[in-house]
């Protein structure tokens, strides 16, 4: 898990913060991407494409919700669950 989080952190920093992880842009594993303005509303599609390609997972439309994707920790847990073939949090369930 720590390695997964670091990979995801590197992706977020490179693609949404353009390499800047210093204050005031530093963020914790639990910080909300939306509330901190790290990933804007169009950026979420980019994150989803990356996750599908890099981790060879399929993400259904109803899984595209903040509970799965709105922080490093949530994304990492989401990927782990997908890889393990477990059910994930989805919209309306």
């Amino acid at each position, binding site marked *: 898990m720590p390695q997964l989080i670091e990979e995801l952190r590197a992706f977020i920093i490179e693609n949404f913060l353009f390499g*800047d992880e210093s204050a005031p842009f530093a963020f914790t594993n639990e910080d909300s991407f939306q509330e901190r303005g790290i990933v804007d509303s*169009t950026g*979420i599609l980019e994150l989803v494409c990356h996750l599908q390609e890099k981790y060879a997972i399929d993400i259904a439309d109803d899984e595209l919700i903040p509970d799965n994707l709105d922080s490093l920790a949530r994304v990492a847990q989401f990927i782990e669950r997908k890889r393990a073939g477990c059910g994930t949090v989805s919209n309306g369930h």
Partner: protein
Amino acid sequence: MCGIAGIVTADGNAIDRGHLASMIAMLQHRGPDDRGMHVDQGAGLAHARLSVVDLAGGRQPMSSPDGSASITFNGEIFNHHELREELVKTGHRFRTASDTEVILHLYQDHGAAAVDKLNGQWAFAIWNHRTRTLLLSRDGVGIRPLFYAVVDRRLLFASEIKALFCDPRVSRELDPCGLDNVFTFWTTLPPRTAFAAVRALPPGHSLSWHDGTTKTWQHRRPAATSAEPPIVGPQTPAALRAVLDDAIQIRMRADVPVGAYLSGGLDSSVVVALMKRHRTRLRTFSIVFDDAEFDESAHQRSVARALDTEHVELRCGAADINRVFPEVVWHAETPLLRTAPAPMFLLSRLTRDSGYKVVLTGEGADEMLGGYDIFKEAKIRRFSARFPASPRRASLVRRLYPYLPNLRRQPASYLQAFFHTTAEDLASPWFSHLPRWRLTSRLKLFFSSDMRAAVADYDGFAELAGTLPREYGDWHPFVQAQYLETAHLLPGYLLSSQGDRVAMAHGVECRHPFLDPHVMAFAAALPPALKMRVLNEKYLLKQAAVDLLPTSISRRAKQPYRAPEGQAFVTAAPSEEYVNDLLSNTQLKRDGIFRPEPVASLLRKFRQGKGLSVRDDMALVGILSTQLLVDRFINHFHTVTHATAH
């Protein structure tokens, strides 16, 4: 429409004519038809003329018959016929048919209060030879630009900043707080400009300079509310049409042909339809984009056919934008976050090449009559805050931006999250603009550590708060949002970077009927529900346009004018060398405004072409335009010859 410049000294020192001539030579593009100077002890006025009214008699600078005052004037006074009649009745005798002389006579009777009588778009300077006082004034909306700088007890003024830099004592250093403004609000907050030594006279303000002392005051504020009872009832659409028709008729007064810009949207189409009622032949000018995402040519042609105009099209692609962008920044004199001024720059060239110096536009309708998406967005965000569990929230957001395919693809829960509204947000005086300004502020992550340090103690929002009218807090939220657009983005970007500056780059004067003071007062008296009915924008204007335009236009949902953005600089072929040079690691380090590493990451992202967002577009355009500004105004600034000035 013209270019003006001048110098006054507190000590009455002689004015260097060559210096003044250099200043006005820098504004040659604004007034290619004639040039003139008037030099007195301690004061010099200069003028570059675009002849539009009284072609033979309107030369400037112009002095009053008794020699007590001289004027250099950029603009048009649309009610000058009526004012002239009144002045003649009270004994004034005129030597010319120009509006310039009308201002001079009014000044003799009313002094600085003369501007209260003007319906027009102006920036002028009057030198009073008796009191040795300079008066600068600018129209209420900020259609015409006017800048000044004070160095060594001398005040220099000009239509454009580049003329002020003819005096090497005026520093060309950028103002970090001005950049902070642009990378938040899309415009500087006047009197601040992108340059530390240069002030903008804010819209609706006048300035007097006497003996080295400057006094500035507001003579007119954009009408936000009205004490007059609104005209509400079946007659309202006709009443709007009548006041707009008057505004159009007085804007068609000129001694040269008058054409129109036609975007294909409601606003410019209404203007063209009403113009056509007063002219058998009318020339319209439009931009046609290669990229279907931005193109509105089908709508433009539909209007042109229905109204039988002589229609002229400019075809524009990403490579064109890339090619002319350096010239656009040279004229805009500020960082830009959008490329949209570039096609307008090309359109004005086509207009001028077609033999036209004057066009009417639909600018201002969105501000006055409730057309902008930001107004809708604010309504939806307020709705979301009141009914956080409503399942309608996401579908409402999807209705907002039908022309943004990326946004429509987004999952509902994310759209809702995007419009997440806190109690603190709801209490903000600029609630409507928070998402835009927050998103734009994120671009500052590209600022260098020096830039960040320079603005660390600067609070642009506090500066903005200081500009708001006292009664602002009592206004309806819709009116507050309208005011923010009208007082800031309209003059600071739309009428300047995307308006005057790129039109005057080729000597084309834009006139805006929706910004007529009577139209603005009419709009201010309307209840918000007549501007935006639920989410139906410009509701009243659509009613007023019903029998003027094809239904496909009068009922058409708003599509904002947009152009290809960041990709234009990365994938356009042939790639322009300046982009790579100015965004290179070496140049970015040398200029010290942006950090090279994140800019390199941004460029990589564009080259991959995946997942590009609005923020990425704004970042690339903003960084490149700032680098162009540094390149043209600081690293390689050149004055032009003044040999042809007289």
